[in-house]
């Protein structure tokens, strides 16, 4: 079984400050990792994903994340946030190289990022 823990349910920051949203996962097999963003009253949009290769992954809107296998973490970072980054962010995991009935995308409970002026 796989699981995802997002360590902070809410993160308030000021505009132009850096931010890190934390995500840890557990799995007995190799995984793919994802970050999604959800703006109010909308569906989820993929921010970035780690499939293989470089452990530093860059996504849309200036976000990046680093895969750390030894710490089973995939923290999301942005060096300078904007008011428009206010949203809920979800970390997700799926089993690597699986197909058929083994494919499942498991989500964390989300982190609400609030950017204040």
């Amino acid at each position, binding site marked *: 079984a796989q699981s995802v823990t997002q360590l902070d349910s809410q993160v308030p920051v000021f505009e132009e400050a850096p931010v890190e949203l934390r995500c840890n996962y557990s799995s007995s097999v190799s995984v*793919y990792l*994802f970050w999604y963003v959800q703006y109010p009253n*909308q*569906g989820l*949009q*993929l921010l970035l994903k780690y499939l293989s290769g470089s452990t530093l992954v860059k996504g849309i809107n200036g976000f990046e994340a680093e895969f750390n296998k030894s710490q089973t973490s995939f923290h999301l970072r942005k060096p300078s946030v904007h008011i428009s980054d206010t949203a809920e962010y979800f970390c997700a995991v799926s089993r690597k190289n699986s197909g058929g*009935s083994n*494919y499942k995308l498991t*989500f964390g409970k*989300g982190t609400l990022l609030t950017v204040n002026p």
Partner: protein
Amino acid sequence: DVKVTQSSRYLVKRTGEKVFLECVQDMDHENMFWYRQDPGLGLRLIYFSYDVKMKEKGDIPEGYSVSREKKERFSLILESASTNQTSMYLCASSYIRRGGAFFGQGTRLTVV
């Protein structure tokens, strides 16, 4: 652009009614999913399907069933709606061996 379309954005149904939530994707994806989203609980998987007529239970399948007769369409059925099924329902689809899923806009269901 991948498009995942859910038939309704908002729905109000009465307790005991049979409710159908429809989802259509236009990218020939093998996998389709139904999630339920509640405050503080994140997204919880109800059912998923990895092929036509194939389905597997997710983490919270009780009170729900699904149907996938065509590759592009995945329906979620609430056999007898109850107030504790009031929630946001999200449909998603993905390729079988590529990472990431694409989501619809969600259906906010209220059962009264």
